[in-house]
């Protein structure tokens, strides 16, 4: 049975989080084959960008901290990848970023013409000097960038939000009002910092980085809960999901799909089929369905 999502059919409710793998058609295809319902490309930017020096990603056990720094060949230099993706037999979500409304619009228009199934605008990355997060913490900026991008693309628009917003429900509502077709939440938490006490300096070359993995799940669940109250468009809930039970919790908060990123580290690249299967098993053993538990945590409120 497939899962409908803004006019497309997905094989299950799992989504590959942006920034995890996602560097080429080959690896996206493998993630799809390993059970992922919707794969997301690495964020595409307005200019070629190397990202930060290493160390960029550190496993803290309870999750990870990263400041990879939005590496991208730049939207104008990905022709071979788009050509390869044309023959794909799986849906693709193209993540994009920019440093201004105009840049977002320019990248989005170009990318839309390449035929991804969805465009996700990353207005929430904490790991760049100027890209992203600014738009996700202010309702007017979020509205401006979503409505500008919406005007120039032919595919559904997903707005990826940051938990750093003071009222993430309000930001999500602004995105919906501006024409977003779905919300994706959350991007990494923080930024945080880890100092090595022997070296007496931050481990990450960028010093600060976004937190992900199991340690951020309660923040992610709360954000999705707040967003569900504020909007009617579907939500991709992510942040710390490693198991089917984590996914069920996110669905009860209000998510329609669940993103997985750091758990690739903890459970392997086939974490997608594991989580999808565990979700099905949980629903079956509780004699219930997605429809019955979707947003169920809101009943008492």
């Amino acid at each position, binding site marked *: 049975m497939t899962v409908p999502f803004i006019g497309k059919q997905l094989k299950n409710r799992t989504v590959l989080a942006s*920034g*995890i*793998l*996602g*560097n*080429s058609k*080959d*690896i996206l*295809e*493998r993630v799809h084959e390993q059970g992922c319902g919707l794969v997301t490309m*690495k964020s595409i930017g307005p200019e*070629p*960008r*190397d*990202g930060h*020096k*290493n*160390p*960029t*990603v*550190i*496993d*803290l*056990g309870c999750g*990870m901290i*990263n400041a*990879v720094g939005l*590496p*991208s*060949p*730049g939207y104008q*230099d*990905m022709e*071979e*990848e788009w050509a390869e993706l044309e023959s794909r037999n799986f849906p693709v979500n193209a993540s994009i970023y920019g440093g201004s409304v105009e840049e977002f619009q320019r990248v989005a228009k170009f990318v839309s013409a390449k035929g991804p199934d969805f465009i996700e605008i990353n207005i929430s990355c904490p790991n760049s000097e100027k890209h992203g997060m600014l738009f996700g913490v202010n309702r007017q900026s979020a509205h401006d960038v979503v409505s500008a991008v919406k005007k120039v693309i032919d595919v559904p628009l997903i707005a990826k939000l940051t938990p750093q917003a003071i009222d993430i429900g309000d930001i999500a509502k602004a995105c919906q009002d501006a024409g977003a077709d779905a919300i994706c939440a959350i991007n990494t938490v923080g930024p945080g910092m*880890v100092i*090595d006490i*022997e*070296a007496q*300096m931050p*481990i990450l*070359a960028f010093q600060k980085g976004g937190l992900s993995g199991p340690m951020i799940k309660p923040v992610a669940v709360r954000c999705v809960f707040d967003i569900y109250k504020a909007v009617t468009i579907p939500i991709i809930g992510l942040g710390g999901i490693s198991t089917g039970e984590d996914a069920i919790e996110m669905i009860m908060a209000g998510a329609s799909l669940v993103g997985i*990123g*750091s758990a*690739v*580290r903890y459970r392997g*690249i086939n974490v997608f089929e594991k989580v999808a299967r565990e979700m099905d098993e949980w629903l079956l053993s509780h004699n219930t369905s997605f429809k019955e538990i979707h947003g169920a945590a809101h009943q008492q409120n």
Partner: protein
Amino acid sequence: MEIKSQQKPLMLRVEKKIMESKEFATLFFKYPLPFIPGQFVMVWIPGFDEKPYTISFHDQDGFAITIEAKGLFSKKAITLDKGEIVGIRGPFGNGFTIHQNKRVAVVAGGCGMAPLAPLVETLDQETIFIQGARTKEFILFPDRFKFEPQYCTDDGSFGHKGFVTDLLKASISSKKNIDIVYTCGPEIMMHKVFEICEASKIPCQVSLERYMRCGFGVCGACVCGKEIVCKDGPVFESQTLRNMKDFNTKALLKSGKAVDLPDYFSWRCK
């Protein structure tokens, strides 16, 4: 003490440094790491950068990495002296699958000797051991092993003048029954070794190199076809190599842009 792999950088002092030649240095560390030959560690020079290096020596008390001064990081790394501090994460990845009781050939090119050295030291059986380099000066670890390698150099300054693949072909055609070939060196050389093995139906294992970030298979910087070099590799077997379309053709730059291998290597050596 429990011996386990390190996730946050483990800060270690350089215990000893050996300059193998003008451009090769081996840095020794005193710390027991779990290890399979072919695995690598991420090496952090605080305040500078972090790069992957395969382990070139290993025993119960410690390990070493061997660095060829090629790019910015490695040129800095060979200047590290005894007592200086670096951060180590790992070991990561899958190493060589070791087959005792089989007839083994080991084919090393240049600094590709580094990951193969601990493998050679685990072998008890008679082994065909071929080692090549640009010149005599670049032959790594002469006199280290109980097997005498067949040497070759590009300029003929040591051993056979020519390529390791000449010697491998000669070994195969002299009806030496080889069950498995292990190789590490320049990718073009490893690809040639792979082709020779395929033609003779000999399984082979190669150790690949790509730009890396996380070291544990999430960031995607090192993908090669459908494989994640840091996690599924760096050692790959023939079966995987047959379907790996980026083997000896493409690699990703730091930006994620896929380029032809020569362009990748010239960027890496900047």
